């Protein structure tokens, strides 16, 4: 799917030439280790770099030039995957051929260069007012998680259950660390990123791989990277508390459960665990949906998800706060069904069909193509979707039951309104 060119040690350009889309998508990904300090610095850095630069020194000036380039979308986000922290410049621009204007693509690529390499410096530091403002933005972004009770509950469980582990470090770092970043340390983090981070550059659209790769090689001046730092220890330690109950001013009860599977993305049994999760609670035909929601009418949402980077599985449900115990017992009962091999042919076939469908559908967006390739590149350099589909096809019920028997509940976290809070 993607044609890869190495333009420096640790810097690759991957191009998928296709006429499927009316736009051209770019993603430039700077990868570093996921530590609280790195995440905190890079979350601010992402905001500072997308605010303005040397050529367009105000946010308004930068946004005006983007509007003029047919509303080219440009944003920088910071995300995480496994023990990687990824600062990602995303750009999407309309393909010239749909416009009366030409030369849009070259202007866009030039702008990407300016955004990354010509920041809005004043005496070799980021402009102080912008630095301060964006530092504050990240603090507020972290604080705002509280307003989304599902995200908040999940974050609380991870903090309490796996403290310090990459699974619990968020891509924005922590309030404490964000506040400790100085303009000087941010500039150092910026240079470190440009010079030392592994860089994966993705391009999807009707463009020539040779032309794009040559352009990036000649204009972006990426130098050879030294060896990347060692992988982090991601061994899972059982949580100290197996059950935590917390209260906030709210109506619904949020039940979050964490399991060790212990199969990761890199293990032979990875496709087996994907199927196990799908049958258990991954889809609307799954055991959790059919029983906890449809049969018991206890929940609007109840589902399981598999975090394959660390071999974790989560179950989330929104329930009446008085029904925690009943819900936990019903959920574990469904897991027991799978452990005992009570899986129908229909459940197995449905889950295989939906995993396959999901993968193929994801490839119908440029962003999906990039995300999937970026993830699976690690398993096989010439990754094709058929690789996964074939492996799902061969999985048996016995394998799934066996995998389920290795799954262990490690923690339940319940967030709900206080008892005296009045019901409606």
């Amino acid at each position, binding site marked *: 799917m993607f044609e890869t060119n190495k333009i420096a040690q640790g810097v690759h350009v991957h191009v998928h030439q296709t006429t499927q889309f*009316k736009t051209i998508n770019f993603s430039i990904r700077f990868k570093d280790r996921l530590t609280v300090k790195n995440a905190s610095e890079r979350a601010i850095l992402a905001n500072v770099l997308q605010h303005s630069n040397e050529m367009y020194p105000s946010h*308004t000036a930068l946004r005006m030039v983007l509007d003029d380039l047919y509303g080219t979308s440009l944003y920088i986000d910071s995300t995480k995957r496994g023990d990687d922290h990824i600062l990602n410049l995303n750009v999407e621009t309309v393909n010239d051929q749909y416009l009366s204007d030409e030369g849009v693509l070259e202007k866009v690529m030039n702008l990407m260069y300016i955004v990354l390499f010509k920041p809005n410096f004043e005496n070799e530091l980021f402009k102080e007012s912008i630095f301060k*403002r964006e530092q504050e933005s990240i603090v507020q972004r972290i604080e*705002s998680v509280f307003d989304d009770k599902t995200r908040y509950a999940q974050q609380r469980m991870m903090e309490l259950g796996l403290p310090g582990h990459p699974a619990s470090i968020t891509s924005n770092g922590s309030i404490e660390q964000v506040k400790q970043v100085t303009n000087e340390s941010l500039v150092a983090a910026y240079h470190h990123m440009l010079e030392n981070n592994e860089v994966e550059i993705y391009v999807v659209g009707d463009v020539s791989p040779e032309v794009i790769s040559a352009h990036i090689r000649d204009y972006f001046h990426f130098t050879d990277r030294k060896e990347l730092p060692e992988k982090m220890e991601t061994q899972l330690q059982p949580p100290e508390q197996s059950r935590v109950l917390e209260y906030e001013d709210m109506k619904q009860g949020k039940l979050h459960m964490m399991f060790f599977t212990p199969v990761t993305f890199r293990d032979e049994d990875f496709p087996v665990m994907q199927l196990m999760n799908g049958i258990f609670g991954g889809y609307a035909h799954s055991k959790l949906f059919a029983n906890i929601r449809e049969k018991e009418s206890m929940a609007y949402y109840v589902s399981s998800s598999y975090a394959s980077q660390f071999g974790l599985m989560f179950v989330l449900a929104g329930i009446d706060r008085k029904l925690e115990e009943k819900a936990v017992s019903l959920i574990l009962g469904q897991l027991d069904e799978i452990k005992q091999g009570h899986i129908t042919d229909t459940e197995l076939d449905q889950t295989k069909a939906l995993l396959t469908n*999901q993968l193929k559908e994801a490839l119908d967006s440029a962003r999906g193509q990039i995300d999937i390739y970026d993830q699976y590149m690690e398993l096989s350099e010439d990754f094709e979707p058929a690789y996964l589909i074939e492996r799902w096809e061969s999985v048996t019920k016995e394998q799934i039951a066996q995998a389920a028997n290795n799954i262990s509940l490690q923690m339940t976290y319940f967030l709900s309104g206080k008892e005296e809070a009045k019901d409606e």
Partner: protein
Amino acid sequence: MNKMEFNQLEETLYHEQLPNGLTVYILPKRGFSKTYATFTTKYGSIDNHFVPLGEKQAVQVPDGIAHFLEHKMFEKEEGDIFQEFSKNGASANAFTSFTRTAYLFSATGRIQENVTTLLNFVQSPYFTEQTVEKEKGIIAQEITMYDDQPDWRLYFGMIENLYQNHPVKIDIAGTVESIQHITAEHLYTCYHTFYHPSNMALFIVGNVEPDSMMQFVKDNQAAKTFDAPAPIERIFPDEPKEAAVKERTLEMAVQKPKVFVGVKPERLDLHGPEMLKHELSAQLAYELLFGRTSNFYHEAYENGWIDESYSFDYSLESGFGYALIGTDTNHPEKFAEEVKKAIHQAVEKWPFGQEDLDRVRRKKIGFFMRALNSPEYIANQFTQYAFNGMNLFDVVPVLEQIEVADLQNAFALVSAESQQSVFTIKSPEKEQA
């Protein structure tokens, strides 16, 4: 079968109205593996007062019934329809809005089987008192979940502020109390009135061959019998021009106060091309006044009145609409005051010229082109537009014709002081951290 070609966009739309009244649209997307289909009725939460099919007296049905009906369509005597879609490798879903109820699937194979399931399950209602009772627990949890979401409360709080009588002010899912009154009989009444093929549209987009698919849908529909199409009589109360409530605050646990300034449009009777031109023109005017390149945004950012949650939007349907400008902020009063000031100044002295228009027009064309990569966007947006007599593929040509005076005229209809309202959510504590 009719064919509409949009050469500049390299898209071709096939469509036909079948003898039973159903309108079918097919848009092939070359290079795509998936097919996305929506089967939509022009029936949403606002249609709560109407004359049932074949009767003379108007009825008022319990709040939240359109959404309740959507949930119940998935359960049949033989089981759950999600299971059926999963067997054929499709992901299915549904949603209810103020004006529409849509049933949908996406799949990368067995498209005919999945289209059959979609058409057949929506066209075979099965409601019993027992299954209706059972659903109440599930929907009560859904309502409770939304009650805990401050952004949802902010949005609905603002709509309640703007509308005095129009049912748009009623929460789409109703309340835990209102859904208790829903019976199987209610569901059948709503179903028979609003799910007639002549009140519905089928949109299929993606990896699909138009001729054979159209024939396939025709055959499916020809094998079923429906009553002759009859016009639906909906009753809407009179709605004053002014906002119902000028200002209101809700206390709820939030990290930082949240505020919306809303503006109610003066003309709520627009339809077709006139509506499209107005909506696009007003959106461009709001983009110039409140977008990321505006003086307002610059000031608000520099002074810390807004954060990353800042947003603005203008949308219009038949009978209601709203412009919304909002943010999380520690200075909700200041923010609201400045938004109102910006609107007032633009009314007093129109500040935008040709160059401004050209820039935001280009931005909007680019946004539209990007959106056309998404089968979901095309199907849902096209259907919404079609129900209001507009054609989605007219967006670019209409944008190209819009002049500065159009922006000014559209803005004049969505700016009067008496049509404005402010809604704020704050934590109960007096002191904000």
